[in-house]
């Protein structure tokens, strides 16, 4: 129970925190909405007053300053008043309609910015654990639900409340009996609306799920289109689709029938409400208990109440759902950002890199187990290993995208844990196997981490990454937009762009984590020969499962199940005839003579 309360408080805090920047706009808008409701009610009162005093001639309740006027004069005065109220209401509505959307834009901007920045700052491990689709969904549709809650439902609730309060006061002041009849229907309408919304909620969820199921059939069919075609399975795909489509259709029809009944009943209730007011009002008016103007005002007020009250049931049931969305956002916002050390140390990044008995477990599975090596500055280390051998973890630990569980990693003698990780990452260029390119031009992509890089530097980096010829084939060259809104690059081109991007940063340490896996052998070779030179005096770590990528390294370590099982340079490892040599042989990179005859590795 207590936990639930604190959770509720967190939810409210989330809303109030982002409402704060919008407070002025909302306050102004809500005041204007209140004024507009009052003016609306006033307009009906003017009509009532006109009918009673000028047209029927009952001038008993007339204020002194008006009693001097003739009947026509009264009519003119009423008309002037009505025009004034209309114009005032125009002004007030304008303020309302400008301020409330402004407030909700400010609210949602604050919420979006906070989310985005927070997500950027969340640790690498968080991004590995959480599926991107889910996070995007939270940032788009859950934010939209929270926005609708504040900008639509809350405001509708508030204005309806105002409306009901103002109308209650006015109606009860005019006549208690008719008011009781008119308001007697309000709980009924509310109840009917609430019961219905409760009832359809489950059907709605079911129908939504059916839609999701249908959607994933289409999605799979489209992404797997080559498989569908190559196996000639169009017919069974269509049957699968039809089955889900029918179910979706049936559920919605059922839901539709419930909704139709509700709407029809709701309409019947409101019409009966008005009829009741008419029946009682006519009888009282004929008896002389209320004036004709009052009667007409009642009918008008009752009509104005109908729609907002009916909407209230919907609003309340929708509002109850926002809790889930806020929870989903809190999940992101409560995840902890990386902690930067208080007084970070700096080090000579050109210095020696040392792994001292480093172990690391990912989700309780040991990925690195007592790994030690020393890499002098400016040298090249190669790491060979199969998928799951822990070879990528070395790169991630070095850039402090993760922290080691045991052991120490030092650069130039300083423990990486004592450094500011952002500064460290700027200076340790890690190229991932599946690099992400941003939806902008190739040039901007290459220069994204190197502010102020000149065109020549960019071109040189592209050349070093063997990307220049590919760029030359694009019509717009370096100005070609890539990614979602532009040209789709092949896996190899993406990897080469990422390599150029890192080379341009001239980072003192560069790590290529299987960064050439999608590049063909010829280009792979070309890049490798340039890489050492292009990297200047930077320390290089090459991680791969292809022997050919690594063989020029000063030292090569072979990882298996998180442990170093072999180390040495290419020649010595081949001589050893262990795992490295076996892999080399299988990959056909070495050990075969040109004439096609078999030459085994140990010869």
């Amino acid at each position, binding site marked *: 129970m207590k936990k639930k309360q604190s959770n509720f408080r967190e939810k409210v805090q989330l809303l109030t925190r982002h409402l704060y920047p919008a407070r002025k706009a909302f306050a102004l808008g809500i005041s204007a909405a209140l004024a507009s409701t009052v003016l609306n009610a006033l307009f009906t009162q003017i009509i009532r007053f006109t009918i009673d005093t000028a047209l029927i001639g009952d001038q008993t309740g007339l204020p002194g300053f008006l009693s001097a006027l003739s009947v026509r004069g009264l009519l003119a005065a009423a008309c002037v008043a009505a025009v004034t109220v209309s114009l005032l209401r125009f002004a007030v509505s304008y303020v309302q309609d400008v301020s409330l959307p402004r407030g909700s834009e400010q609210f949602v901007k604050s919420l979006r910015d906070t989310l985005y920045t927070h997500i950027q700052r969340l640790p690498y491990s968080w991004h590995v654990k959480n599926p991107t689709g889910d996070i995007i969904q939270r940032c788009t549709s859950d934010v939209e639900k929270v926005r609708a809650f504040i900008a639509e439902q809350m405001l509708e609730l508030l204005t309806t409340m105002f409306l009901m309060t103002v109308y209650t006061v006015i109606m009860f002041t005019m006549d208690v009996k008719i008011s009781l009849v008119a308001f007697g229907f309000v709980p009924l309408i509310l109840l009917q609306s609430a019961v219905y919304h409760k009832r359809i909620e489950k059907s709605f969820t079911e129908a939504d799920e059916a839609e999701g199921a249908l959607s994933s059939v289409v999605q*799979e069919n489209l992404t797997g289109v080559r498989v569908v075609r190559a196996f*000639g399975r169009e017919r069974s795909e269509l049957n699968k689709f039809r089955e889900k489509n029918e179910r979706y259709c049936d559920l919605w029809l059922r839901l539709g029938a419930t909704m139709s009944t509700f709407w029809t009943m709701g309409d019947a209730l409101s019409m009966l409400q008005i009829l009741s007011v008419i029946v009682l009002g006519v009888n009282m008016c004929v008896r002389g208990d209320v004036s004709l103007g009052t009667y007409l005002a009642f009918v008008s007020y009752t009509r104005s109440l109908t729609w907002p009250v009916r909407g209230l049931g919907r609003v309340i049931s929708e509002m109850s759902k926002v809790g889930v969305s806020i929870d989903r956002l809190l999940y992101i916002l409560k995840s902890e950002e990386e902690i930067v050390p208080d007084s970070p140390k700096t080090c000579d990044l050109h210095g020696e890199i040392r792994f001292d008995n480093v172990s690391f477990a990912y989700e309780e599975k040991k990925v690195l187990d007592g790994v030690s090596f020393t890499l002098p500055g400016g040298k090249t280390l190669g790491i060979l290993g199969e998928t799951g051998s822990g070879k990528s973890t070395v790169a991630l630990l070095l850039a402090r995208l993760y922290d080691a569980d045991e052991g120490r990693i030092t650069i130039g003698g300083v423990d990486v844990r004592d450094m500011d990780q952002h500064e460290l990452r700027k200076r340790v260029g890690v190229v991932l196997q599946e690099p992400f390119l941003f939806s902008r031009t190739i040039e901007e992509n290459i220069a994204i981490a190197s502010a102020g890089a000149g065109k020549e530097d960019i071109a040189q980096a592209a050349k070093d990454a063997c990307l220049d010829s590919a760029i030359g084939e694009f019509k717009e060259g370096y100005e070609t937009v890539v990614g979602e809104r532009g040209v789709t690059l092949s896996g190899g081109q993406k990897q080469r762009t990422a390599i150029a991007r890192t080379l341009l940063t001239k980072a003192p340490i560069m790590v290529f984590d299987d960064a050439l896996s999608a590049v063909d052998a010829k280009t792979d070779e070309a890049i490798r020969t340039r890489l050492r030179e292009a990297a200047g005096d930077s320390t290089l770590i090459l991680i791969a499962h292809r022997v050919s990528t690594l063989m020029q390294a000063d030292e090569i370590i072979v990882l298996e199940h998180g442990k170093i099982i072999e180390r040495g340079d290419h020649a010595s490892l081949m001589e050893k005839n262990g795992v490295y040599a076996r892999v080399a042989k299988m990959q056909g990179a070495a050990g075969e003579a040109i004439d096609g005859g078999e030459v085994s590795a140990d010869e």
Partner: protein
Amino acid sequence: MSEKANEKASFSLKPWKQIWPAIRQHRWLFIGAVATDVIMAGIDAYIPLMQSEVVDSFLTPGSTAGFGAYVLKYLLVIAIEMVLLRIYFACCMHLEIKGGRDLKEACFVNLQRLSIDYHNTTSAGHSLSRTMSDTDRIAAMIAWFVPDILWGFGYIFSAFFQMARLSGRLAVTMILLAPIVTVLTVYFQKKLIELNRAVRAEHSKITASYNEGIMGAKTSKTMALEEKLSGEFRETTARAAQAGIRHAHMRALYVPMVVCCGSLAASATLFQGGGMVLDGEITLGVLSAFTTYSLSLFQSFRMQAARISHLISQQACVERVTGLIDEKPTVTDRPDVIEKYGDCFEPKKENWEEMRGDVEFEDVSFHYVEGGEEVLEHFSLKIPAGTTVAIVGETGAGKSTLVNLVCRFFEPTDGRVLIDGRDVQDRSQLWLHSHIGYVLQEPQLFSGTIRENILYGRPDAAQEDVLAAAKAVGVDRVAAKLPDGYDTDVGESGDKLSTGEKQLISFARAIIAKPKIFVLDEATSSVDTQTEHMLQKATQTLMRGTTSFVIAHRLSTIRQADLILVIDHGKIVEQGTHEELLKKQGAYYALYTTQLKAQEKK
């Protein structure tokens, strides 16, 4: 306002006409919805008259004589309205849901027929949103908005008619105001449509930024780009907020203005009509009906404008769906072929011949895009059944072209592709595809169990065959690790499995199909060296006698092939066996010895 914006905001019947055939079978629902809606518009316009009847028959004379009959009449009106409403809702609901269902099916059916080139150039997300959400929107438009627009015209017309009938003189004010409100409405709606378009554009930028910021998070963390990207995002949201506020400004002028016109009209009516009541020209009841009309009528103008502009804004959506439904596949079977062999949904398997697996290219020329570079020029090659053909070359060199032609994903520009000595075009695509086993670089599975995914290759296969196929490629070890074994759900697109595991299942799926033509499209590049070795052995044994096409860049995969084709820049530059090609000392030799040379240098 520019001409272009004018054009965009104008209504055109053409796309709606094109969508009609898909809805045609539900025309009675549409007619029912329109008919009930228009009758209801008449009733709604009649209600204020009932109010004036109360004033004139009971309140002014001060008697309740005949009031019982009046109440009965009112109840009757309520009853009629309820019946009509229920019919209207039923018609609209069924029209929306069934129309939506049929539109979705029409899209899906055509997506099955469209050729691979369409799918290559159209993203799955794009086709998905056409099939799922655009169709829903169109169905809702036709079911609810079109009848409602007719309702609006019906109501406005009836209201004016009633007013003119009650008092021509008093109606003049309203009739004079109507064109002003219309002009204002048209002007503001156009502006609002433009501004709204800007708002949507900004919003899609926000969504794109989220996509990028979240999908690219790992990369941006490695490069410490967090603050840079967050700063850019704040600029994007600021622009979106600006666009939203601009739109709100315009709306805040327009909506209250229309309401104000209504109250001004009511004020004028009160003054003029009040005088007329005093002069005895009209009754008090008539005046009360008039004030009711004047307060509500211009609101209907506004609602009508909103509905119409919504309809216009959805035109693009209709065009997208008709575009998809009417898109013609580039690869089609001839009518006589369909006659004999059936189409992809209704195959006539009794007429299908067995396939041996001989493949022949006869003077084939091919280019992907009209006017583009020739990828194949007068290429001829005979591949007897059972041959293994390896296709090597750089990434993006066009290695898939031959396979695309054999699978008839594309048609040759010139020349013929023959299967068992007959032109592929002489038999149906489904006949061909039913004899092909295909393993892609990125494995594609479907929701369901491992067993179901293997059976996808041949649904009528026996359980033993499933187990045998699974065992041959090591799926048995994957299944053994999972709680429900072969009956474990693999998740959407197989997402619960690793890429390597998915690839093994897709191998089993191809093996169980007992294909005559087997295609491996860089199928082992996502598995490690040892698994690759295992798969190679398994397929070599199981696919003996099957014509195989192996696309690969790992040379070890290729050495055993009967024939090696070397592709460079989309063209076949060399062909022959491993030994022949090495002797030739050409492109293959260069490719093959790259690593070796590098080693020697050391």
